[in-house]
């Protein structure tokens, strides 16, 4: 459903991605692993349309979306759970979810989506009128995922969803990734916690210094010397 080909992305004059190619199939969890600064978030932000690639193509369901700005990408069926959560801190939990469903397609399914998110994260229902900024780290991550799901994506981009969370909450987050996949949403997962990411993924890519240095099934990557050396630290 997503094909990224030969992507070059720059920050000003500094190149962050060199010819990155990644594909995600329908209903699949694909992870991008790699160390800090390898270009993982850059790739996600380029797909979302937050960053504009200088070269290469991004195709979503046979439609070229390379030049599509961020605010159109979400109508095309892509949503993001950004690194560091980036909620709207001085707005309530409910308003954050509400804004997740801002685009017209998602708006039409608002009640249905809200029910789904509340089933996945019952705590968000209890805290609906609390300000997002006053939630605990784990609750904030759930809200960030919930907000992403409110957009009714066919492809969910998740950038470091386990960062800074207690182990119990990390387990919960990864359970949700599997649930979401089972409901037919494709997930592109960027994680430093490579072990857990590979456990829930069917395929994976290893990114190092802005280049895809390896790709294959999650099992292949988990066993490979490169991944074990560079990310798993075994």
């Amino acid at each position, binding site marked *: 459903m997503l094909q990224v080909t030969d992507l070059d992305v720059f920050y000003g004059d500094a190149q962050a991605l060199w010819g990155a190619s990644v594909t995600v199939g329908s209903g699949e969890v694909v992870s991008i692993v790699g160390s800090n600064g390898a270009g993982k978030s850059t790739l996600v932000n380029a797909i979302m349309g937050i960053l504009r690639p200088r070269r290469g193509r991004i195709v979503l369901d046979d439609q070229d979306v390379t030049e599509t700005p*961020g605010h159109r990408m979400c109508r095309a069926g892509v949503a*993001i759970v950004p690194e560091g959560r980036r909620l*709207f801190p*001085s707005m309530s939990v409910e308003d954050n979810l509400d*804004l997740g469903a*801002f685009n017209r397609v998602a708006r039409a399914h608002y009640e249905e989506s809200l029910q789904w998110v509340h089933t996945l994260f019952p705590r968000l229902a209890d805290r609906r009128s609390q*300000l997002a900024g006053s939630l605990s780290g784990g609750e904030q991550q759930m809200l960030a995922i919930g907000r992403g799901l409110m957009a009714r994506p066919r492809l969910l981009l998740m950038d470091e969803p386990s960062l800074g969370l207690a182990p119990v909450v990390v387990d919960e987050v990864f359970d949700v990734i599997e649930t979401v996949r089972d409901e037919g949403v494709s997930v592109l997962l960027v994680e430093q916690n490579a072990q857990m990411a590979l456990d829930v993924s069917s395929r994976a890519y290893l990114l190092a210094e802005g280049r895809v240095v390896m790709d294959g099934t999650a099992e292949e990557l988990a066993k490979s010397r490169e991944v074990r050396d560079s990310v798993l630290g075994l």
Partner: protein
Amino acid sequence: MIELQAAVSGALNGSLYALMALGLSLAWGFLKVINLAHFAMILLAGYLTFELATSTGLSPIATIVVTAPLMFLVGALIQLGYERFDVSELNSLLISYGLLIITVQVVTNIWTADFQRLPSEINPFSAESLAVGSLRFPMPTLLAAGFAVVLVVAAALVLGRTYAGRALQAFGQDREIASAFGIDHRLLGVLLAGAAGASAAVAGMLFPIGGTLTPDLPFEWIGLVFAIVILGGIGNVTGTLYAGLLVGATSGLVAVIWTPSTSPFVVFSLVVLALVFRPKGLFPQKGG
């Protein structure tokens, strides 16, 4: 008693400054532009009100039918320009300072640098006043306060209660992520800048009603208006009104207790203290 009169009159005057600060604060907080051209629009609207009222004989308040949509358009166009050239926060300050200087010059060329005053037969408000006990309030000041309160309350309601308002808040808090969820910042930004322009038209109308016009008025406004924006909290609309009332009342009181020339000293000392101890404004919003 004179102290009470000074404080209340000062507060009412301050509300006019709050009305000027409203548009500036919204654009700064939500669009990240420091739009000094806002003062140019207020000045221009003031002179247009003067011109339209004297040439047609209409009440100056009626001219708002023309000036508000016109300034909406001007505000929106300036914002489109900022968007088109991807102007940063600091550069918007420099560019709009240039626009302000140009406007002041153009206004001087058209209407001369002399004082302009609406003839009293067109401006019945200038002579009227309202007495409350032993206190007395000139009608123009009351009108200004009334418009300021109505517009601030309207802005607060739109921001807090409507979907577009919440989208704007989201945009002010994290523009990239708001955009990733489908919030088209260009459209919202242009609408907000237009609304700020329309509020400038209302503020501009109140000057010829209350007194005389000269082209260099904006340079008298800037300091106080910025003080109010900062004390109120950038982008905080109700805070802007409170700050306007506070600054106005303080200036009024200081002027009668000491001398009028001491009031800027006290007001700006207040700003410095606020920046040190309450950098998000005196009336912080929840969360943040």
